[in-house]
């Protein structure tokens, strides 16, 4: 969980959602930063054990902040600028064949 420092320039506010929950972010933030600022710590489950993971390096190296953005999976949240109306979802971990959409 992150919070803005007291004397930061708050900038323009953007609406987005995470797993269907409405959230607000600051224009200029990356998706990963916006999630942290909204108290989201885990944004994906690993495809191996299903363990929860959250942003770790914030600089495109670790791939822990992978999320689904507007239906496109495996996006690095720390590299994608937040946009108005973005639909962000948890990157699911282990999925079984029967869950595959036809």
């Amino acid at each position, binding site marked *: *969980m*992150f*919070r*803005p*420092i*007291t*004397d*930061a*320039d*708050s*900038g323009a506010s953007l609406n987005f959602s995470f797993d269907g929950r409405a959230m607000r972010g*600051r224009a*200029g*933030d*990356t998706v990963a*930063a*916006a999630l*942290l*600022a909204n108290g989201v*710590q*885990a944004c994906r489950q*690993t495809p*191996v*054990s299903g*363990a*929860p*993971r*959250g*942003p*770790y*390096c*914030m*600089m*495109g*190296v*670790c*791939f*822990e902040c*992978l999320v689904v953005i507007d239906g*496109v999976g*495996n996006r690095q949240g*720390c*590299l994608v*600028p937040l946009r108005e109306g973005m639909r962000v979802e948890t990157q699911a971990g282990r999925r079984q064949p029967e869950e595959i959409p036809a």
Partner: protein
Amino acid sequence: MSIARNITDLADRYDLLVVGAGPAGLAAAARAADCGLSVLLADENPAPGGQIYRAVGTTPVTRPAVLGAEYWKGGALLTRLAQSRAVLAPSCTVWSVAPDAAVGSVEIGVSLDGRARLIEAAEVILATGAQERPFPIPGWTLPGVMTAGAAQIALKSSGLVPAGRIVLAGCGPLLYLLAGQLAAAGATIVAVLDTTPRRNWRAAIAAFPDFLRSPYLAKGLALMAKARARLPFRNGVTDLSAEGEDRVTGVRVTRGGASETIACDTLLLHQGVIPGVNLSNAIGCAHEFDEDQHCWVPQVDQWFASSVPAVAIAGDGAGIGGAESAALRGEIAALGAAQRLGRLSREQRDAQAAPIRAALARSLRGRRFLDLLYKPAARFLAPPDDATIVCRCEEVTAGQIRDTASRLGVTGPNQMKAFLRCGMGPCQGRLCGPTVVELIAQAQGLSPAEVGYYRLRPPVKPITLGELAALPQSDAAVKAVVR
């Protein structure tokens, strides 16, 4: 300067591609453009500055004292680039660099805004910088455990600090700098757990006189003294683990033989930075193991040209030297490229480089002291606890790697991949490579230099099948031989 926001804004060919818009890349691009080269400066982040000058042109942090004077120096590099004729492509990922000596050009695979393209450059300067050294302790994969650099990026680019109780752990200048910045920003630091091995002083002391005459002394030591006086530092930490179920709730710390748990909401880890070698490795540049910095570095000549023709490597990606030296190395690499492309004579190049080289020598003075003093303890390079995850992507543990190395006689990281899949996830070994090498070296009684490193493959950043499928095809009509 012009900005390319669309893949179609890019030209088919540039004289020079610079990868990475940190200090080295900014300086290289501006210098090369001033020499008359057509330059593309590509960076996967939304704004230039790299990590050290992250978001220096766009940061919401208004009070200069929070980030410190060194940070704001980056603004001058942005201004210089803006006044040059270079093309800046933000949010642009370079996923392949393939020099072809026969054709005399370099094929570049780039992605921008969800679309991929192949373009060409006559010369390439990699200014991909550094990453933080992996810090594999039990529980480091828990949400709420991050790198110190990550917190610094959140502060610089978004004006965010961790809410609640923060513990910082590890060693090295960035850790102390961040502690000071977070404190200045009003964050709650409950402990700074210093893992600097006490006996490092013995190795480092010989390099101390040089350090006393170095630029690090003034800015670094003063900063650290201030941080140490004001913050809850605890020295001599010999063991660490992050605790919690589905997020971090505390840190188990051992010092002087006694252990305790410190409750926290965020744990920030750091034990130095190492060159990001994925791109230079995938290109096939020769690397060597730097014993002092304890990491792989690409081999470069005095113009920062790599072992592969048409590919130079500037900045911390060619060995850690800090922001100031990175920018200077970028300038020299640009002069080298301009000479190879015939825009400067050797004499012009050498004359222009001379004052930069002098400044570079000054900027690097004293570096060795820091390298030796903050060399991580062995147990934080090769985790002794078998259950500790080493490869975060594929969830491979230290015990599995040790066992495979000794029982199956696996002597190198590339063979290890075939057995355990370590290094085969999306981060492509960036977070496990150094640790896997360390563990194999330990099990086989070899040095990391003897063990070698992963052979990395393009794309160095993932591209989607759809992006690849939309590239022009060179051989689509060829039919399979089916019997």
